[in-house]
């Protein structure tokens, strides 16, 4: 396998445009967690014209609801959750400058269209590899919606966080192309 590509957040248009489906990528920097419940609240803020709890430009959102941290750990196991539940909210966030998303599972046509239009990528993380993934999370800060428990928005400091490009800015979809390639 080709050497993984290392990227740092926040991401520029050039950063994301250089990525192609199937690329193995290691992410370093700050990323933000949000599941569908938090997305709904973000959209409510946008509709009311209020500012978001973090500057979304160039950022990556990770769809995750971690398990509780054992004493001595910064976070509990934290693998990706199903991205599709955030699909209805995603195009608006992409129009505001969100550059990347990490999750598991396919995205809707609307999200894929918005990714091409606003230049953003979708990364697949390995569902179920939660204990392994948590090793690449170095610091955690809850920045909004603490009442949502595991679904609160957290700022994560990650180092070499392993993902695979599943949808790129050129309309590529690894779910479709990968399956086609290996179907017998």
């Amino acid at each position, binding site marked *: *396998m080709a050497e993984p590509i290392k990227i740092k957040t926040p991401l520029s248009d050039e950063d994301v445009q250089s990525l192609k489906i*199937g690329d*193995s990528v290691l992410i370093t920097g700050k990323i933000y967690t949000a599941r569908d419940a938090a997305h709904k609240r973000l959209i409510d803020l946008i509709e009311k014209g209020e500012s978001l709890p973090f500057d979304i430009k160039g950022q990556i959102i990770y769809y*995750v*609801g*971690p*398990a*509780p*941290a*054992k004493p001595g*750990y910064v976070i*509990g*196991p*934290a*693998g990706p*959750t*199903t991205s*599709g539940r955030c699909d209805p909210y995603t195009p608006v966030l992409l129009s505001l400058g969100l550059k990347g998303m990490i999750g*598991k*599972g*396919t995205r809707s046509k609307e999200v894929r269209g918005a990714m091409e239009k606003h230049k953003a990528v979708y990364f*697949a993380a*390995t*569902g*179920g*590899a*939660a*204990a*392994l*993934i*948590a*090793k690449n999370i170095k610091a955690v800060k809850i920045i909004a919606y603490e009442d949502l*428990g*595991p679904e609160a928005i957290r700022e994560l400091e990650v180092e070499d966080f*392993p993902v*695979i490009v*599943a949808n790129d800015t050129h309309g590529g979809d*690894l*779910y479709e*192309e*990968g*399956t*086609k*390639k*290996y*179907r*017998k």
Partner: protein
Amino acid sequence: MREVDYNTIVDAVARLCMDANYYLGDDVVNVLKQALAKEESETGKDILGQLLKNAEIAKTEKIPICQDCGFAVVFLEMGEDAHVKGNIIKAINDGVKKGYTEGFLRKSIVSDPVKGKNTGDNTPAIVHTSIVPGDKIKITVAPKGGGSENMSEVKMMKPADGIEGVKNFVIDRVTRSSSNPCPPTVIGVGIGGTFEYVAFLAKKALLRDIGQRNPDPFYADVERELLEKINNLGIGPMGLGGRTTALDVFIEVHPRHIASFPVAVNTNCHAARHKSVTL
């Protein structure tokens, strides 16, 4: 009549909740290794390698394999000559509460499906009880993740659809599930019984260890055939393309009504968790 203490049940269930979440079965670890050796896709190999490393970390550090520590599904086989001092269902729930709290497991249960809030301790458990001969109590805890559970389905087919209809339904269900249940998956299939019972059969099928075939050679052959067909779909690890889409297929059957032919598919992920104890 043999007496079993309330707290024996509580402690056993708590232990099973933790063990099931920390320790991926050797059967799954071994089949993942075999799959890794056979996988053709580079991305697929990468993912299978991660799953093996993940299981190793979870085991050594005693942390959950997956952040979704599941709905606590409990199979209780109650010996007719055994008796628990106190209510055994309450004891099981106290055990789940203890296991999920003390074991740092994620609590994912909402009290009311429409109006509810997180119950905060992962209770209530789903308990399937059967009465068996003897004075022993066997308890199996099978934590079930939401992502794969959502890719499950019951279909009331026609008797004329026969085994070919069953096969087509299973393949279609897996195809539509695509990347969502964190493939590689384990597929439980129920055939027969009634609407509610067939779903239970499919769930019960998931308690088998990888490679354990249905004792009826007819269904054992269907299991093998379905596994091969599923792995030829190309969905691959995490749905990103590859040879490994399912690790096994298990079929459980039951007599049916002359007019009905219920079939159920219960999808499980590679985090095919189940641990048992006999008290």
